[in-house]
């Protein structure tokens, strides 16, 4: 199967800390942190649109691996917060990074979109060449939309993550993935065309707590791997309590679950790739080490992807 050649990210410079947010919401900063595990989040300026952030994450992804934009065969952009109904941001992003004409696909899927896009890219890469996957979100807009819901507003931040998938040659080989969707729960986490994010937190946590460990177990068991053998788990950065719970259910220490929730909040579909982009810079992986990616989000959509550090050093 295909491999991950590089990761990248873009975070807006503007930082919104709990003190400032608490004043805006009329709440206690300590309450925000205890409820969410979030200390601060990044907020996009007016000119930092989904497309702009996505393009910057794409450039950050391509730069270190030496791949030029014209060497990309396809662009996939996942976002649940693009500015327009159509066109989505994908074509605009491709043009912005200098590859107009390359097929660019929008995946309007919040939270789980990054992993679904990577899974699709891993299948497409052998036929279309390198696929640039980007997830970008401006969650601050719907998070602070009226009527303001403080329980929701404290959770989200803005940013973009990216990764480049190739047929071969990457440091992380994609081994397998499992994807699931169940529209029964579509109304429990949603963003309408106007208004704030609508979330039935109890249903979301209840389902995610059950489904994420299950789907991780599903992809691991069919590859004869146990959770304790997985070097790292890169999860959608939704909630620190949820990540800790998944770790506990799997019988694995939370230290194997890189987390940036405290600094960025929940950046929806962008979060997993932002986390992976930071993690890969210091990850101490040995050849063959398994790494598992996992997501859960609105839809509900959920899935897990198993990768491993390439056995031989490749270009």
């Amino acid at each position, binding site marked *: 199967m295909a491999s991950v050649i590089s990761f990248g990210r873009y975070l807006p410079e503007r930082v919104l800390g709990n003190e400032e947010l608490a004043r805006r919401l009329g709440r206690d900063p300590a309450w925000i942190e205890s409820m969410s595990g979030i200390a601060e989040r990044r907020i996009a300026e007016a000119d930092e649109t989904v497309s702009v952030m996505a393009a910057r994450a794409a450039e950050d992804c391509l730069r270190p691996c030496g791949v030029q934009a014209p060497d990309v065969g396809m662009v996939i952009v996942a976002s649940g917060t693009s500015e327009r109904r159509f066109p989505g941001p994908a074509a605009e992003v491709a043009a912005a990074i200098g590859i107009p004409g390359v097929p660019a696909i929008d995946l309007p899927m919040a939270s789980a979109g990054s992993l679904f896009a990577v899974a699709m890219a891993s299948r497409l890469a052998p036929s279309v060449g390198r696929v640039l996957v980007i997830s970008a979100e401006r969650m601050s807009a719907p998070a602070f939309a009226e009527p303001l819901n403080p329980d929701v507003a404290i959770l989200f931040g803005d940013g973009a993550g990216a990764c480049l998938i190739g047929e071969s040659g990457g440091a992380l080989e994609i081994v397998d993935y499992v994807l699931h969707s169940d529209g*029964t729960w579509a109304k429990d986490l949603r963003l309408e065309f106007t208004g704030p994010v609508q979330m*039935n*937190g*109890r*249903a*979301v*946590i*209840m*389902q995610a*707590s*059950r*489904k994420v460990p299950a789907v991780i177990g599903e992809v691991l068991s069919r590859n004869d791997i146990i959770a304790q053998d997985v070097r790292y788990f890169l999860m959608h950065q939704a909630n620190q*309590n949820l990540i800790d*719970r998944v770790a506990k259910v799997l019988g694995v220490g939370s230290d194997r679950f890189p987390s940036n929730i405290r600094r960025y909040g929940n950046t929806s579909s962008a979060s997993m790739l932002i986390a992976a982009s930071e993690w890969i810079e210091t990850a101490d992986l040995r050849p063959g080490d398994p790494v598992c990616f996992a997501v859960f989000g609105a839809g509900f959509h959920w899935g897990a992807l198993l990768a491993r550090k390439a056995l031989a050093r490749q270009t």
Partner: protein
Amino acid sequence: MNKRERITAILGRISNKRTEPDPEESLFDAGYLDSFALTDMVAELEKEFQIRIPDSELNPRRFESIARIEETVGKYAAGAHAA
């Protein structure tokens, strides 16, 4: 202990509250359960009654009160009506 007493005992452990809610009282509104405590509650119920509640049935409303939990557990626990 009968079924209700067993459920109440689990709730006491999860919530760390010494008071007992009325059977119809909302466990969420009364502060006995939040999102994560609800998940713990379900896991403990499954262990205590040796049942597996399908994901499709994991709707918070089914765990809103002691009475609703009794109904939910009863649906899956063998011989629950005799308890």
